[in-house]
């Protein structure tokens, strides 16, 4: 449904044009990559700019950039540029990519990586072609507007809201939905409920607030750091087989969720957690609540949150991995990626925070009906299967390009 809506919106996306130059090269142009790639046929001339593109056969953004370069070659830039492409599954090209990234002090992994003179661009997003055009025009002495090249743009002007980027809003929405669904995962929820209920018995609202908040925030931090780690691996692996592997795992987890739903749809209530596990957690919480030292109590809470969340992490890795793959496919890196991860985490923690705050203010614990868990199993399972299938057969849809 969501994709249909996006497809509809995308039909109305605007196109824009950009200008080119046909004049001689600026003296500021310096080809600093040539010596690294060390290819004999590279042409050095006074009126042509060399563009180097490191790409992967399996990366959809790279394909987009290659298509863009084909268009660029047909434009009035054709006499002004040489485009050299290097596929990174080749060992030498991969080694050269590393050297080039070192030269440009680029720490982030991934391709496409475009180099023009002393400028480098990692990724290919909405504004990359604009940036390439600006770089080319700066290296060319004049920039008369002669020809336009059509280029996809996801900026859309809406009444009242002004100019919005549909893609960014869509990813925000995906972060919100996946984070919320993931948050309903009962794996770690039972520990929070136990902590809240046991703290309620102390009748010490301040202690309850600090212990609960520390537990929730530490849990969020563990999840955030784990997602950063997974994201690093996802970005590092530009190989299709890894993406397919993630997709297959998503489909398997989706099917597993559906089986759980079918098996337990008529059951209500909670499945008993293993005795040893319960005893261990209850003992730790007792130690925290009975601790006379405030700092030791908080430290105990942090250790408890760290340990249980690390143990329970495997229980809910499906959605974070899919979300990170979506970010990777959409070339969302660096600071922007952190922002989206934080959005995901906030919505992941939302149900915990609501339950916790209600308990602090009313001194009563509210549970989320186990009936909702069944719905989450069903919706989550279907979503995982759809995402997995799209990752394999239509990754460009996950890139929100229809």
């Amino acid at each position, binding site marked *: 449904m969501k994709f249909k809506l996006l497809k509809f919106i995308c039909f109305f996306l605007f196109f824009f044009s950009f200008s080119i130059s046909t004049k001689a090269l600026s003296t500021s142009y310096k080809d600093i990559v040539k010596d690294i790639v060390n290819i004999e046929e590279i042409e050095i001339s006074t009126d042509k700019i060399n563009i180097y593109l490191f790409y992967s056969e399996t990366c959809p953004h790279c394909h987009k950039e290659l298509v863009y370069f084909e268009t660029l070659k047909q434009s009035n830039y054709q006499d002004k540029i040489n485009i050299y492409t290097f596929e990174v599954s080749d060992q030498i090209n991969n080694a050269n990519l590393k050297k080039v990234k070192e030269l440009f002090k680029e720490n982030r992994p991934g391709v496409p990586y475009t180099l023009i003179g002393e400028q480098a661009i990692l990724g290919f997003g909405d504004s990359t072609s604009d940036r390439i055009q600006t770089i080319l025009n700066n290296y060319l002495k004049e920039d008369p507007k002669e020809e336009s090249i059509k280029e996809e743009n996801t900026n859309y002007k809406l009444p009242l809201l002004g100019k919005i980027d549909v893609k960014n809003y869509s990813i925000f929405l995906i972060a919100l939905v996946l984070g919320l669904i993931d948050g309903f995962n*009962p794996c770690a*929820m*039972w*520990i929070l*409920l*136990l902590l809240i*209920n*046991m703290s309620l018995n102390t009748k010490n609202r301040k202690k309850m607030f600090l212990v609960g908040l520390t537990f929730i925030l530490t849990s969020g931090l563990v999840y955030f750091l784990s997602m950063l780690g997974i994201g690093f691996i996802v970005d590092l692996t530009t190989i299709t087989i890894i993406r397919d592997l993630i997709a297959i795992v998503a489909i398997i987890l989706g099917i597993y969720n559906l089986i759980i739903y079918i098996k337990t749809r008529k*059951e*209500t*209530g*909670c*499945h*008993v*957690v293993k005795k040893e596990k*319960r*005893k261990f957690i*209850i003992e730790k919480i007792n130690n925290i609540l009975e601790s006379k030292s405030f700092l030791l109590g908080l430290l105990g809470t942090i250790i408890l949150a760290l340990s249980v969340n690390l143990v329970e992490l495997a229980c809910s890795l499906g959605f974070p991995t899919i979300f990170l793959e979506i970010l990777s496919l959409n070339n969302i890196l660096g600071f922007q990626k952190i922002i989206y991860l934080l959005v995901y985490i906030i919505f992941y923690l939302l149900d915990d925070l609501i339950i916790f705050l209600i308990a602090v203010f009313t001194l009563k*614990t*509210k*549970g*989320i*009906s*186990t*009936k909702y868990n069944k719905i989450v199993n069903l919706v989550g399972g279907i979503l995982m299967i759809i995402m997995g299938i799209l990752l394999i057969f239509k990754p460009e849809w996950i890139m929100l390009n229809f």
Partner: protein
Amino acid sequence: MKIIKINAMWCPGCLITKSIWQEIEKEYPHHEYINLDYDLDEEKIEKYKIGDILPVVIIENNNQEIKRIIGEKNKKEILKELEDLL
């Protein structure tokens, strides 16, 4: 009649059912209601041999179990199960 409610602190379904039973207790005060915690009253609940689903409500008459309600139920469902007993 004795109504034994077995809940756990970590079980969200128990929390939902617990508040419903509080209402029922007010409406039918002439019965004996006993709350047991799955973790804290381990010895007491052992004899009931409850399975792996919580909450469990056991209704006894003259120390004989006459009804068992397993799982999270809404008020209507609970009252329906107990319509001949309460």
